[in-house]
């Protein structure tokens, strides 16, 4: 293993531009899980971001919430403004592992880890978050909705680092997040659903229902038209069109589809 400990974001970007296959590390909660059992993880080179104060923190501006690349779940849970204004961020953060993970895990790490079962990504996507990428070549912004091209495939090049996440401040008339797991604590989602409605329209985001976290255009269209949804089954066609769940160790595709319909139906009734 080679370990890089840069003193600034500029240095970090120079390292990523000059070296191949370097893995940036923030809180390490996803990366270290494999250290004891997979020796190959020790052969990788790591870029330790934890010392970069410019990437820390949660900042509110007039128009948006800015999460630095090192902002943790706990940073958001502990921010009273977040609970008032963007409550789904707090709800999702409280369902990520428990305090020991919330204190270390970062929102940016959740995005680049690209798990289809992520908890932080669906709520960020339902709030139209934008990913700020930094490299030695400059700065680029990508809407989180467009950030995934396929399973673990990111719209980000190897020399780019997630520097921040921008979440617009808006008024919402609907804000819901639901996570269905095997148990309430320390579980990974079998089905996740984030639902918002603002002047920008409906956002329906599904987790654990496709190779990536994704918006559901057919469901959003259905809600935009004001369709009267009288039973969960009325959502099945749109869910079938928007998602492609699989059978795996956590659940079955059929269970996920049916549960998503029921969870969304209940959320719309709430």
């Amino acid at each position: 293993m080679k370990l890089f400990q840069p003193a600034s974001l500029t240095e970090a970007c120079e390292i990523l531009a000059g070296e191949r296959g370097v893995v940036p590390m923030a809180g390490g909660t996803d990366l270290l899980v494999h250290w004891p059992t997979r020796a190959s993880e020790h052969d990788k080179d790591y870029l330790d971001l934890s010392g970069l104060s410019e990437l820390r923190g949660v900042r509110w501006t007039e128009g948006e919430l800015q999460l630095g690349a090192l902002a943790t779940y706990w940073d958001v849970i502990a921010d009273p403004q977040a609970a008032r204004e963007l409550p789904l961020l707090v709800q999702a953060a409280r369902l990520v592992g428990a305090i020991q993970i919330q204190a270390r895990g970062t929102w940016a790490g959740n995005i680049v880890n690209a798990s289809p079962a992520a908890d932080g990504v669906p709520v960020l996507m339902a709030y139209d978050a934008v990913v700020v990428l930094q490299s030695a070549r400059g700065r680029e912004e990508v809407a989180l909705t467009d950030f995934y091209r396929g399973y673990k495939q990111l719209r980000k090049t190897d020399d780019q680092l997630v520097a921040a996440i921008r979440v617009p401040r808006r008024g919402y008339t609907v804000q819901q997040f639901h996570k269905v797991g095997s148990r309430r604590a320390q579980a990974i989602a079998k089905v996740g659903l984030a639902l918002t409605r603002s002047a920008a329209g409906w956002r329906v985001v599904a987790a654990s229902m496709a190779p990536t976290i994704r918006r559901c255009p057919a469901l959003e269209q259905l809600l935009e038209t004001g369709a009267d949804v009288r039973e969960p089954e009325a959502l099945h066609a749109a869910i079938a069109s928007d998602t492609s769940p699989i059978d795996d160790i956590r659940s079955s595709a059929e269970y996920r589809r049916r549960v998503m319909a029921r969870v969304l139906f209940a959320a719309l009734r709430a």
Partner: protein
Amino acid sequence: MSVDSAFGIHHSAFSVSFTLNGSPISVEVDPTDRLLDTLRYRLGLTGTKEGCGEGECGACTVYLDGLPVNSCLVPTYQARGRRVETVESLPPARLDPLLTHGATQCGACTPGVAMTSCWIIDHPELLATHAVRELLAGNLCRCTGYDGILDGIAAAMQARP
């Protein structure tokens, strides 16, 4: 020890300095060492236990800058310049309410449970938004059924000045 001057590049063992249980220390570590390993095998603080080794069970809970973390998921190099506290930092009397309320049986989870419990007891303001059970969700115990732990925490919080 080998350090390239340009970017702080470490290939092999190097020195990391941090504050451990109130005292500054420096320790030689390998880049692959987890904080859990450094505490137990380099510093001899074996109170911190390894349970699952993947951030699920909480047996290895320590405080990093005052917050409970799984030391099995912290690379030691990230402790650089920070504050680490282990179960050895708890005065024995703090365990009394847990012991008298049946918060421990086999003991495998106890160091981690004691750390998270004392963190909750020291931060009563958290109970405005969180239930004790939620704050304790990262510490798995297969003996007590948790009620003894919750009773011990409640007793300790009532006894606070």
